[in-house]
């Protein structure tokens, strides 16, 4: 291996990556000594993460750029060399991954004692946890098709095994199958995109694609396939239904990585493909599509999150929302870049990437807190918690800080990035030439503001129900204090959430170098005053200086609080006032349903027939059926795994609700048509009445004119008759339209019934062919061509 690094600090990340390998080896070997296994694996992982954090932060700040060619020793040297590219964007992604990995592995020390009795599980955890982190870091550096797809699949497989860790529960096995289905779909799309890119551009290294002769159509085809692949892996809305199943199923420190980091790599992929690899052919419509997807995910994710009772599922739905917000920044950047609006493109990149790191911080912290709750209270149902701030003080405090971050309260980091997103969308609405993109920006603003309100609603619910009030179960009443490692792991993310909220200018400055590097022009885009953001693109200032606002709120609050405390002296406690009835804690203590019931009622049409499930689109059905292609090879693997005492699932255990979903799809169409029929019948009525009125007016006019002039009478009479006839004709036409719409509706109802019966038999076979064909093609070109 030939690794040429220019600096010692730059070398540290390769040492860190070796550290992950060491952790893997210990993770497999030491399973008979669970306690030392725990300390060694997680300490080594955390230490390696520190090295990678330091090294990538250094690269990022120095704007370091480097291409490393990896040539394997003989006989593997017959294969083409692999490329590792270090630039500000990939350094930033590696920084995010290793940062989250650092405190997630510290948290794990206190968390994994539940698995001490199962050596198989310990082996899977010890092997997959460090290699999952390492593969995510390496994906960010991958500079060619082969290393990208291989590392991407390593990431998928390791995360799949981690999701399946508690595979004795049916729910987890189902989640695993659904996750694998979407991951396969994603891999098929990405492989297709990269194979096409290789065929069109004639090279497997990304850097060479920029100088190739692609037609706009070819570029758009590659982009579309890549977007499909990355969206499926990120849980963007039409492809989201695996995310709220799989993320909660994993152990909590892995959930923190899945939700905090893994989905972000798909975001990274979109930025890399659209703004770097295929940048010369970028078109505004790419950005518009991403904006619309983002707006949909933003609202849909949070609206579904708010009604959940399972805390990890709720957090997973919030990930969909935040992925949407990241997409808003990225989409706007692509549109702006394609229309040569470079300053706005940089602002969009800043908005997207800033929210990316912010979400990585607070979402992983929230998942760690939920892990603590699971570990101490042994439930994920928030209905069974309550009053936990007395026992779990540190967790309550960390959860509060993370909630303030995720609800975009000013002075915390979430607001700073949403502020950037809003500003770029506003500028997009006024500056971009294309009206469709401008309208997409308008929709995005609406979606973002509604999501902001709902996020506050949602997290006040979670915090209030879990930590405040009175305990609602025996487990909650007897919860014990959290282990030390959990408390320690909260420190870093909480501190960063507050720091990036008070001084966002630091991160904005760093990200502007990433944006400048992508856009390829150095622009004086961002001026940072002492502590804050001041985006100065056109000479007119727009500022958000949180430090001053925080200080003034603090001054007023401290003065008022001092006064309020001097005037309070609690000598007695009261029961809550409930209109004169005696307060009964069991019945009257506030529940989540009390808080969000009205919302469920108002938005019931969105939540569907069964409230626990969202109305997944028909996409899920096709994707899940297509995974059956893996059935036979997988069954073999599953048998081997099970014989080794490792987790495995049967593909037979598919969830039962596909038919419902499929049915619902057609049912909606039927509904739409019957509504159209109703509207049509109403319109008929209006037209009829209108014509009748005109007819009546004319006949009155006739009556008047009889007296005045018989000539006018003669003239107007036939017009009156004409209108009467028109009325008759229109009423018949109406009937015809009505009947036509009714029959279409009936047709769809029938189609629905037919569709339920037909198993979509042969589809998966074709997908198998496509998958194999692309792989063979790729292999052929790589080895021979």
């Amino acid at each position, binding site marked *: 291996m030939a690794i040429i690094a220019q600096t010692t600090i730059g070398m540290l990340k390769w040492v860190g990556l070796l550290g992950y390998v060491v952790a893997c080896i210990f993770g497999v070997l030491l399973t008979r000594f669970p306690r030392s296994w725990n300390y060694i694996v997680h300490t080594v992982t955390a230490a390696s993460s520190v090295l990678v954090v330091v090294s990538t932060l250094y690269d990022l700040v120095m704007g370091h750029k480097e291409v490393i060619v990896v040539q394997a020793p003989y006989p593997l040297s017959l294969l083409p060399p692999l490329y590792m590219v270090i630039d500000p964007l990939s350094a930033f992604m590696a920084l995010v991954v290793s940062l989250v990995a650092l405190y997630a592995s510290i948290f794990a020390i206190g968390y994994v004692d539940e698995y001490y009795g199962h050596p198989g599980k310990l082996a899977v955890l010890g092997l997959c946890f460090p290699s999952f982190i390492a593969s995510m870091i390496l994906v960010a550096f991958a500079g060619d098709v082969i290393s990208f797809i291989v590392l991407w699949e390593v990431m998928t497989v390791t995360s799949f095994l981690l999701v399946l860790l508690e595979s004795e529960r049916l729910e987890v096995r189902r989640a695993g199958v659904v996750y694998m289905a979407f991951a396969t779909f994603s891999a098929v799309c990405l492989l297709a995109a990269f194979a096409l890119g290789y065929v069109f551009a004639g090279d497997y290294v990304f850097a060479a694609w920029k100088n190739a002769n692609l037609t706009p159509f070819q570029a758009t085809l590659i982009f579309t396939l890549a977007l499909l692949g990355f969206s499926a892996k990120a849980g963007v809305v039409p492809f989201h239904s695996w995310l709220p199943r799989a993320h909660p199923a994993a152990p909590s420190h892995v959930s923190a990585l899945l939700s905090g980091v893994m989905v972000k790599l798909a975001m990274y992929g979109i930025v890399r493909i659209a703004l770097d690899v295929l940048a010369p052919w970028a078109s505004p419509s790419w950005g518009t599509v991403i904006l619309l997807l983002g707006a949909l995910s933003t609202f849909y994710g949070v609206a579904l999150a708010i009604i959940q009772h399972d805390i990890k599922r709720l957090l997973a739905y919030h990930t969909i929302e935040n992925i949407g917000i990241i997409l808003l920044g990225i989409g706007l950047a692509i549109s702006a870049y394609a229309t040569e609006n470079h300053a706005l493109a940089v602002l969009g990149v800043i908005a997207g990437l800033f929210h990316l790191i912010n979400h990585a911080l607070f979402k992983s912290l929230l998942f760690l807190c939920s892990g603590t709750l699971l570990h101490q209270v042994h439930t994920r149902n928030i209905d069974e918690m309550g009053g936990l*701030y007395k026992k779990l003080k540190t967790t309550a405090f960390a959860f509060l800080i993370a909630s303030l971050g995720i*609800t*975009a309260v*000013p002075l915390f980091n979430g*607001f700073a990035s949403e*502020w950037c997103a*809003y*500003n770029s969308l506003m*500028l997009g*609405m*006024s500056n971009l030439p294309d*009206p469709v993109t401008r309208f997409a920006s*308008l929709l995005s*603003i609406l979606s973002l*503001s*509604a999501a*902001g*309100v709902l996020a*506050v*609603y949602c*997290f*006040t619910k979670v*915090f*209030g129900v879990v930590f*405040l*009030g*009175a305990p609602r179960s025996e487990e909650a009443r007897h919860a014990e204090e959290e282990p030390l490692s959990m408390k320690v792991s909260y420190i870093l993310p909480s501190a960063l959430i507050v720091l990036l909220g008070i001084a966002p200018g630091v991160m904005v400055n760093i990200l502007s170098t990433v944006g400048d590097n992508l856009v390829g022009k150095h622009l004086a885009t961002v001026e940072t005053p002492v502590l804050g953001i*001041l*985006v100065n693109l*056109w000479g*007119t*200032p*727009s*500022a958000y200086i949180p430090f*001053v*606002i925080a200080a*003034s*709120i603090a001054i007023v609050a401290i003065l*008022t*609080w001092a*006064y*309020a405390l001097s*005037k*309070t*002296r*609690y*000598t*007695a*406690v*009261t029961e*809550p*006032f*409930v*209109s004169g009835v005696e307060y009964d804690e069991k019945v009257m203590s*506030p529940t989540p349903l*009390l*808080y969000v019931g*009205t*919302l469920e009622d*108002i938005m019931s049409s969105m939540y569907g027939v069964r409230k626990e499930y969202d109305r997944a689109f028909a996409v899920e059905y096709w994707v899940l059926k297509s995974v059956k292609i893996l059935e036979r090879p997988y069954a073999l693997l599953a048998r081997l795994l099970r014989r080794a005492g490792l987790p495995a699932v049967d593909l037979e255990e598919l969830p039962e609700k596909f038919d419902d979903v499929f049915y619902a799809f057609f049912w909606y169409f039927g509904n739409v048509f019957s509504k159209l029929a109703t509207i049509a019948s109403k319109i008929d009525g209006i037209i009829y009445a209108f014509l009748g009125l005109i007819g009546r007016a004319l006949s009155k006019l006739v009556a008047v004119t009889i007296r005045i002039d018989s000539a006018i009478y003669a003239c107007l009479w036939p017009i009156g008759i004409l209108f009467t006839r028109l009325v008759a004709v229109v009423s018949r036409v109406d009937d015809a339209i009505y009947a036509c719409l009714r029959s279409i509706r009936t047709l769809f109802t029938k189609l629905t019934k037919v569709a339920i019966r037909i198993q979509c038999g042969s589809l998966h076979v074709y997908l198998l062919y496509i998958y194999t064909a692309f792989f063979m093609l790729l292999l052929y070109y790589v080895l021979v061509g």
Partner: protein
Amino acid sequence: MIEDVITAIINAILVVLLAPLFEGIIRKVVARLQGRYGPPILQPYIDLAKLFNRTLLTKPATASDTLYSLAPVLVFATIVVVAALVPTFAARPLTLADVLVIFYLMGLVRFVYSIASFNVANPFAVVGSAREHLLTLGVEPAALLAAIIAVLSVSSPSVSWVAASIPGELPVCYWWFIPALLGFIAALLADLALPPFDVAEAEQEISEGLLAEYGGPLLGLFKLAINCRRLVLLNLLFALFLPFGMAANYTAVEVVVGFIVYILKVVVAAVILSLMVVVAARLKIHDVVKYLLYSLAFSIIAGIMYILGG
């Protein structure tokens, strides 16, 4: 710079001092319209003085002490800071915050209010704060979009919202101004917590929600904060859409005119709002949400007009 800081502090003091008067006027006018004699206009000041002089001796059993006393303090402090940021008599740009920061600081207020209602474990309080969120769900997208359009149309491509309040460059000149103004006012009316829309603090229905659990100076802070919030929202309307009469420079004449015009605006708004209070009966939360869809429709129409024409 130093003048701007002084202006901000005067803004905050002005709002805190005028807010009870605003309520007093509404109460008086409503009483006269209903044929009652009504309380004196200064009654809210007397009420507040009474509350602030008491000592609070009890607290709810399950509540955390710190959170119980900190909640009204934080709500009040945030609203005072927002009041300082919104121009009242002088339209000078203060590069500290824009319209987004102001809307989202109101989010902080809602956050603290809801947490406080879970803290006292009173079901009425929880229902009250849930309604507050539902109402805001209708209000905020419409109001924010209308505000953004007003800002963009006068100061494109700047996003500094204070630019909208520079006299001589009224947004009236643009034809999408009218739907934007209608959308903003329609949303604002629902957010003022005055009778047809006071679902969140309904006295008769949920016994004032969270406020029932508070007393003494803490209740006084909540009451003062609610009053200040009303005035801040009106200030936002004046600054974004009706910025006439505001002082552009700190000359004595302009500042005096600015003060007089501002107080006149507040009094006129109070009289108009009391008419609304008298003629309408309280709506249910479902009806409020339906009503707010109209304000959203107005804002979207304004947005489409802006996109096609701007």
